[in-house]
């Protein structure tokens, strides 16, 4: 049995197990609270693992290990931003949101505002952010399948995207939040185990001497000591000030974006109380932090044992560094068969990772469509639970179908920037609206709508006019040239613009409701009147 056949077998076992869980979950999904929030009955540890599952995407597993393997230290900058970001969620958002919201991000924003305009804005932003993220993951799946499973024909890649898309639709439509959460938990366990296993083998190979691992990595990278220092990928000296400002811009979007990502925010609703939400974020921080420390060893280990050149030959972005390392270190320690088995395991885990993340994103966008746009904007709050769930399921199907078609269409485009764009939109539009809603007494409908649309449009427009889309050889459209904005990441400009738009919008409107502010402030801090858990 070769490694591809073994990978596919392991992946099929994962799919069968998670589908089993999903159908079990569907029998325990009876009302809207079950479908949107998993009955709010998950424990802190369970939801903490699911937070890790939702957050540790293939981009962070394969992507960060790859950046470290090719550009050394700079990949670590990414991990740090992704981790520190969780403190914003822990200190300012998770508990207050659990206490004052119900199913979606918009519940908190619409609490003391005129519901229709605010929910429309929040729904548009949620669906936009989720689809950007979803598209990047699905195109990534198409690209990886060749390297992981040996499927390289265009039809094979398109077929893979369809299979991934159909599976994510089934998880969400059938299992709702309950099924999706369990898929995240299973995936988090597999990913942590796989990453820890390879890390331990790499460290063992170097006699648990970190300095010797780093030294070999620097040597094998062909870049010497510079490989262990910042500056090979971000803030490159030769590219001048714009490149350094781009580094700051990326850093800001990473650290402020997480607490505005809709698929992360709805995780806080799956637990019984704010105190459990707090515990789950602390578990999440522990799991995610350890995971990024593992990827640091994986990245440097790949550079040291496989060599940067051999990795770049397989994949320009270095996305295969982790699987290649698994094969190499398995071979060094257990012989050829060991290498084949370890490669197959890591490839299957990487694919499970993609599948779980896209399911989380589909759930977030279909929930927002059904709860915000359909139930509150279109039906003005008169929809029944059963109607809402039915629309959410149809929406999951439709969003999944659209994502499949777009991903097949975008297969050969370089869409990796969409993840950074999703973080930038979340930090520029969603985060200002959430923080103002929770903490600023004077905030009102005009302010919420201006913050969201202001942040969303400035982030998207700046990216359209950036080198990511045109003007350079690696752009989406290399032959066009309308790149007057010099930074690849819009955050440095769009985040302040989002906060400013929210401030100005608020000041320009006279609307203010002291009673509703008293209610959200008391409820968010005390948990009075918070939605209760449902146990079947």
């Amino acid at each position, binding site marked *: 049995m070769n490694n591809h056949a073994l990978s596919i077998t392991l992946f099929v076992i994962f799919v069968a197990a998670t589908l089993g869980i999903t159908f079990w979950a569907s029998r325990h999904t009876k009302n809207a609270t079950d479908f949107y929030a998993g009955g709010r009955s998950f424990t802190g540890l369970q939801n903490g693992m699911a937070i890790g599952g939702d957050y540790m995407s293939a981009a962070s597993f394969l992507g960060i290990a790859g950046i470290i393997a090719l550009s050394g*230290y700079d990949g*670590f*900058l990414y991990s*740090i*931003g992704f*981790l*520190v970001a*969780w*403190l*914003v969620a*822990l*200190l*300012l958002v998770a*508990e207050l949101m659990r206490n004052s919201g119900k199913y979606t991000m918009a519940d908190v924003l619409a609490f003391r505002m005129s519901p229709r305009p605010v929910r429309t804005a929040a729904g548009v932003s949620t669906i936009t952010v989720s689809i950007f993220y979803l598209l990047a993951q699905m195109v990534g799946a198409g690209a990886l399948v060749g390297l992981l499973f040996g499927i390289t024909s265009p039809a094979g890649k398109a077929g893979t995207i369809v299979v991934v898309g159909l599976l994510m639709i089934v998880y969400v439509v059938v299992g709702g939040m309950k099924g999706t959460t369990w898929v995240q938990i299973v995936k988090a366990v597999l990913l942590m185990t796989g990453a820890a296993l390879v890390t331990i083998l790499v460290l063992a190979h170097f006699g648990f001497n*970190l*300095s*010797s691992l*780093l*030294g070999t990595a*620097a040597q094998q990278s062909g870049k010497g*000591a*510079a490989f*262990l*220092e*910042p*500056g090979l990928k*971000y*803030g490159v*000296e030769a590219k001048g000030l714009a490149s*350094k400002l781009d*580094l*700051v811009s990326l*850093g800001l979007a990473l*650290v402020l974006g997480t607490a505005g990502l809709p698929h992360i925010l709805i995780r806080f609703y799956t637990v019984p109380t704010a*105190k459990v939400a*707090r*515990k789950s*974020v*602390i578990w999440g*921080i*522990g799991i995610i*932090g350890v995971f*990024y*420390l593992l990827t640091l060893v994986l990245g440097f280990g790949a550079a040291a044992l496989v060599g940067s050149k051999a990795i770049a030959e397989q994949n320009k972005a270095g996305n295969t560094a982790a699987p290649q390392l698994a094969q190499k270190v398995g071979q060094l320690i257990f012989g050829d068969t060991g290498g084949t088995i370890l490669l197959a395991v890591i490839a299957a885990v990487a694919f499970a990772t993609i599948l779980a993340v896209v399911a989380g994103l589909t759930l977030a966008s279909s929930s927002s469509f059904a709860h915000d746009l359909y139930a509150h904007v279109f039906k003005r709050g008169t929809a029944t639970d059963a109607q809402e769930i039915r629309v959410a399921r149809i929406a999951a199907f439709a969003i999944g179908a659209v994502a499949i078609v777009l991903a097949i269409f975008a297969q050969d485009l370089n869409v990796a920037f969409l993840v950074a764009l999703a973080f930038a939109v979340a930090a520029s539009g969603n985060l200002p609206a959430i923080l103002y809603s929770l903490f600023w007494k004077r905030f009102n409908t005009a302010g919420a709508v201006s913050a969201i649309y202001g942040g969303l449009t400035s982030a998207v427009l700046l990216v359209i006019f950036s080198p990511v889309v045109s003007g350079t050889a690696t752009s989406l459209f290399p032959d066009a040239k309308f790149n007057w904005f010099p930074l690849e990441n819009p955050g440095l400009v769009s985040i302040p613009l989002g906060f400013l738009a929210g401030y100005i919008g608020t000041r320009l409107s006279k609307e203010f409701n*002291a*009673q*509703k502010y*008293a*209610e959200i*402030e*008391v*409820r968010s*801090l*005390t*948990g*009075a*009147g918070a939605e209760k858990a449902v146990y079947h």
Partner: protein
Amino acid sequence: MATQHDESSTYEQVQASAEFQELRRRYRNWAFPVTVGFLLWYLLYVVLSGWARGFMGTKVFGNVNVALIFGILQFVSTFLIAWAYARHADKKLDPLSGKLRGEVEGTISE
């Protein structure tokens, strides 16, 4: 069930109470300065990575340099702040918020 108007005035009364103001003060006086602190600490790291390459590349022991230690310290500070917040919330926030929650829910469901 009380009417909508009564519920709203209950929240306003609680909001004005000394106990709630104490809870709000304890929460904000911890969370806001710490947030500013860790964001500045993180930005310092990003700015040094961009503009103080010589310092970041200084070797401390073996092949381990300042940049790597600084990065690991960001992990350490994140874990410590998460732990400290959990302690603060358990000791200083939860007892007070639990008491106020009981009072509000008691008043509203009467």
